[in-house]
């Protein structure tokens, strides 16, 4: 770990906050390596459909082929290439994770910012609402949401849009459902930040100059909140990915033949039996999932440490 050296006075004054955080971040080897690995992996997953040696959904006679030879990490119960399915699954998991985190970002930041900025009775009511939602077991909320809305939404989509669009109902529900259970902490964090920022003198100065509330919130307060938000976002993505894998285990996640890392692991776990061990079905998908989540967490931790060092000065 590289400790931040005291910068020469002139430089510290001229350096922007973003630059300073960036310099701190690049000083953390583990975080930088993780970010690089993540970027490379996202690139690989995006390019994979053009270079894949096997089709992800085509069945073959090579059922439960062991890793090696034609199939680098083996095949599953239907003789499909596990490596290709893992790549598609990883892109699905990352997509669900990012989209869910973005939904939580939009709801959480607007809720928290409005509550913190307006203060008083509205703030009390909004945060009481967050308290109420906090004490709802999230699993019941998500399961009820997905099971009840799916059929209705699907019919509506195929009537209003097209059948192809109706196929993506499950994804939309997953994004929305997972996002809507993970915005609560974000709202609390943002509210806390906004609350302490709005009494600072630069906000008062802007108000004296006659700026509107929207302008103050958007141009002066929120730019100071983004850092914390981004950090928390990198930590939300892993938790959404994990949640999706649990839903896949219940059969409520991504629908076959499509796969996510979670559904692949769940499939592998269902093949555990005392007679034969298909270790690759569990080891590779969970290894990849763990590696991805580890990289994300290290990046998030690195970002947070870089930000917090800034605050201490």
């Amino acid at each position, binding site marked *: 770990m590289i400790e931040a050296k005291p910068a020469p006075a002139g430089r510290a004054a001229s350096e922007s906050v973003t630059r300073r955080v960036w310099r701190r971040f690049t000083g953390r080897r583990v975080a930088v390596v993780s970010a690089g690995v993540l970027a490379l992996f996202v690139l690989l997953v995006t390019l994979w459909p053009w270079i894949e040696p096997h089709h992800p959904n085509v069945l073959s006679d090579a059922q439960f082929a062991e890793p090696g030879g034609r199939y680098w990490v083996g095949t599953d119960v239907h003789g499909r290439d596990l490596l290709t399915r893992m790549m598609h699954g990883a892109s699905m998991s990352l997509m669900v994770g990012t989209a869910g985190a973005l939904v939580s970002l939009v709801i959480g930041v607007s809720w928290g910012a409005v509550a913190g900025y307006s203060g008083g009775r509205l703030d009390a009511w909004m945060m*009481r609402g967050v308290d109420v939602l906090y004490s*709802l077991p999230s699993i*019941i909320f998500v399961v*009820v949401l997905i099971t009840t809305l799916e059929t209705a939404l699907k019919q509506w989509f195929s009537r209003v849009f097209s059948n192809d669009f109706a196929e993506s109902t499950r994804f939309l529900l997953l994004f929305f459902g997972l996002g809507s259970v993970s915005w609560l902490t974000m709202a609390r964090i943002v509210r806390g930040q906004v609350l302490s920022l709005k009494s600072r003198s630069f906000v008062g100065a802007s108000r004296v100059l006659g700026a509107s509330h929207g302008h103050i919130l958007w141009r002066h307060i929120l730019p100071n909140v983004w850092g914390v938000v981004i950090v928390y976002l990198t930590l939300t993505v892993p938790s959404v990915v994990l949640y999706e894998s649990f839903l896949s285990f219940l059969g409520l996640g991504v629908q076959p033949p499509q796969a996510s890392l*979670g559904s692949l692991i769940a499939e592998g*776990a269902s093949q555990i039996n005392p007679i034969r061990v298909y270790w690759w079905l569990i080891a590779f998908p969970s290894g990849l999932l763990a590696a991805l*989540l580890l990289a994300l967490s290290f990046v998030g931790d690195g970002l947070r440490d870089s930000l917090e060092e800034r605050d201490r000065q």
Partner: protein
Amino acid sequence: MYFTRRLIGMIPVVLGISFLAFMLVRLAPGGPFDHERRPASPEIERRIREKYHLDEPLLSQYGRYLSGLLRGDLGPSLKYRNHSVADIVMQGLPVSMTLGMCAFLFSLGVGLPSGFYGAARRGGFGDYATSLIALSGVCVPAFVVGPLLVMEFAVRKRVFPVALLESPIHLILPTVTLGLYFSGRVSRLLREGMIGVREAEFVVAARAKGLSEVSVLLRHVFRIGMLPVVSYSGPMLADLLTGSFVVENLFQIPGIGVFMVNSSLSRDYTMIVGLVLVYAVLLLMLNIIVDVAYRWLDPRVSYD
């Protein structure tokens, strides 16, 4: 005084939750009798709905539910006929709580020492090693850990029983499966909390008066550094005590975690609302206890 005020403050929240949960499950399309012998005559369906008062206006149904709630009656289960929700909860909750308590102790027993070690060795090899192990514990889902543990220690080595809950030995595998994730979380939280206060003024003062590094860490840094763990304990215990679907399903444990998922799948209205209330009341009470513990650990905090 503080305690009673908090308890009274719980009432509107519980009411809000019960209203929200009730409306959520009742307004969503689909019902608990959708999957039963479909061609039942309209007459039968009408009679069933009448029996469970599903034909009344929603608000009066909610009123009926609330008046039952005051008498400790959570209503009849719509799925498990002849059983009341209160019966099912009373049977399952103690089982889930026993297992949850074991898992809680396990998570603290594993998470606190490893987090402490990581914080003490910050930036060194030991820190990264414990971080890696803790994060892996968080990242590998219980439905992978569980079957693997059963295969290795129950089926092959025959050290532990495969399933069921008959003696303390039966508790070990479910406890580990359930507690692994949380011990990872506890370890990370303690590490972060301790690192956050490592250079605080009261710690510098403790060092300056000549305490050894070990006792500075143990007596001062740990005490304040474990505050994040304390506040996480509330939600964590609420999750653990109300059971886990995966673990109860895998080890055939008759807790209420299974009902959490099954009742939402089968739209068993009364059961869903009852379980939501059990969870919420548990969580709110635990949060009060957490706040009291917080004040005791950190004298700077005051709530008045």
